């Protein structure tokens, strides 16, 4: 074999090795989200809590002191309550969070997202939410018995307009 064909063979081998490198890491090694026998619990909502205080009626003197274009009878706090969330799985408290309102004036929605693996199988999920700090205890509750297979995702959501706690 002359030098030239040998070079071509060497080039072909090196390009083939590069192709194998690209091809392999393009799909391998496989990534594993969850351990064996696990399902996934996702908790997520985006909800504006109730105002932290009741609106009050302004006195005529107060109204007169307010610029003309801002004269509304009711004076309401902009700040919203944090949203308190508790998630129980089979009677055990799995997650407990006070989700603060967003915004510099704390007048935005509270939003959160968490994911946590749980064992596949049957579970009783209980969710409690309080979005009004003027109220003791919880303002919304929901529960559902779920049968989770391996890799299945259960989502705990909260949409006040659609009945509150949603477990699906």
């Amino acid at each position, binding site marked *: 074999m002359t030098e030239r064909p040998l070079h071509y063979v060497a080039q072909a081998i090196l390009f083939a090795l590069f*192709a194998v490198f690209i091809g392999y*890491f393009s799909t*391998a090694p*496989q990534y594993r989200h969850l351990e064996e026998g696990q399902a*996934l619990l996702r908790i997520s909502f985006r909800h504006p809590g109730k105002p932290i205080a009741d609106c009050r009626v302004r006195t005529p003197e107060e109204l007169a002191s307010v610029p003309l274009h801002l004269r509304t009878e009711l004076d309401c706090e902009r700040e919203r309550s944090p949203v308190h969330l508790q998630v129980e799985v089979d009677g055990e408290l799995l997650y407990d969070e006070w989700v603060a309102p967003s915004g510099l004036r704390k007048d935005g929605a509270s*939003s959160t*997202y968490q*994911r946590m693996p749980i064992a596949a199988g049957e579970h009783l999920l209980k969710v409690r939410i309080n979005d009004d700090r003027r109220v003791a205890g919880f303002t919304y509750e929901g529960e559902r018995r779920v049968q989770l297979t391996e890799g*299945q*995702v259960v989502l705990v959501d909260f949409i006040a307009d659609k009945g509150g706690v949603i477990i699906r």
Partner: protein
Amino acid sequence: MPAGAATGAARAWRSLERAADRVFGADINPLRQLGGLGFFLFWLIVISGGWLYVFYETSVEGAWDSVQHLTVAQWWGGGLMRSLHRYGSDAFVVVVGLHLVRELALGRYTGFRWYSWISGVPTLWLIIGSGVIGYWMVWDERALFAATATAEWFGVLPGFDPALVRNFLVPEAVSDRLFSLLAFLHIGLPLALLLVMWAHVQRLTRPRSAIHRRLAGWTLAWLLGLSLVWPAQSLAPADPQMLPDRLALDWFYLAPLAASDAGAPGLVWTFVLGITLVLMIAPWLTHAPRPAPAEVDPEHCSGCARCFEDCPYAAIAMAPHPGGRGQIAVVDADRCAACGICAGACPSSTPFRRSERLVSGIDLPWLTVDALRQQVDAALAMSPGPDPVPGADPAPESDSTPESDSTPESDSAPTILVFGCAHGAHPGSSPAGSAGIETAGSRVRMITLPCAGMLPPSFIEYAQRHGADGVVVAACPGDDCEYRFGSHWLAGRLAGEREPRLRAAADGTRLLQMEVAREEGVLLDNGIASLARGLNAARAGSIPETEEIGDD
């Protein structure tokens, strides 16, 4: 980078390149044209992506189906294009990453190169961003992973809503508009990338945005082979209510998302932002003094534009002459590499001019053509050098003519003047400079230039007329040139193919032109010894045998 590490990294990279040279040859060595290879892969991705876009449906229902149809029913066309698109993109990341490593290892990111370096950094993230969006478009399990992991990753940033991921948690949250947005982004980001790539090469003259035809052929061949043997496939359609047991990820693009998903989104952000910051300030982390840029003398600049043509970094522009006579070269100091190639191109850089002080149209203030002529004069007037260089070839024993006396101090020994590059090989183990050394019984004088391309060809003839028995011009191999075109332009000038040309009056038999890398000092020594033997033989009236110059 610390000096020791920098030298080690440069040496390691150069060894790798030279090893690859032996297999590929310098012409098609992919390690020597990573930038051009990046451009080639970019256009390949654009063409294959264009095919895919024609058939792609921007809807929840249509996205996966249309890609699957291309992959299965049109495997010979769309399927092949999809695989080329995938593997070409993967290779693109690797090539651009290697390009960055190469320039870093060779220290080519500081000084005048700051602009090219800084403008190259965003390309990395634009490529990754374009690729990740591309994976979303398939809307399979991998796409859903990429979408949720991206949303989770961004969700930890201040100012971003942690519930950003809600857009992908339930099937009804995903609408057709998402896919129109993805298509827009998957075209828009590569367009932005192209713009940055264009900006990246703006400070280069004749940027190498193309590759050797044979390298292009090889690249296409392996990509096609891989695409046929191992075609890219979709996973199952995205289902937000199920996670696949194991997920086949493209690690070239999705590795940061996997790391974030595994529980370290903050760490991934720290790494990404940290490495970006380090890369962006890297040009100013080293305090190497920057040599003064070239200066134009309006009195002597004829406006011939040769320096403008030859400058490798587009640092010279032509402007109206302030004296109203034609044009004048204007140097952009920030772009100037101070390589001196412009001085070598200037027709007024001839040492034969009789003026006491030689002034060129364009000159390096710290190594003027006048200083160069003085160095040549001094080198040729020097007494024999002090010590023989250890390891240098002795004179051949068979050569017994008085002129070829092997005694180093012999007055009859031929004087050889070496014009060499500061970045290239030096005779023996001598340090750069014009110190006298002995090789094969000859007196060797070295004139070191910032780049061999700085040498005006007339200096060769000048040296021959003023006492040099032989002249060696030692440039770096063309692809090794620190300043891109120095060796090419010099070779063209000496071959009479480029201005300023070597005049016919120069004695070609007393000239040795070599291209030797800095690691090839032995080769240079052999060349000098060979020239010395030839000169000795010529003096003795005999014709020397042709000698092979090897690097043994």
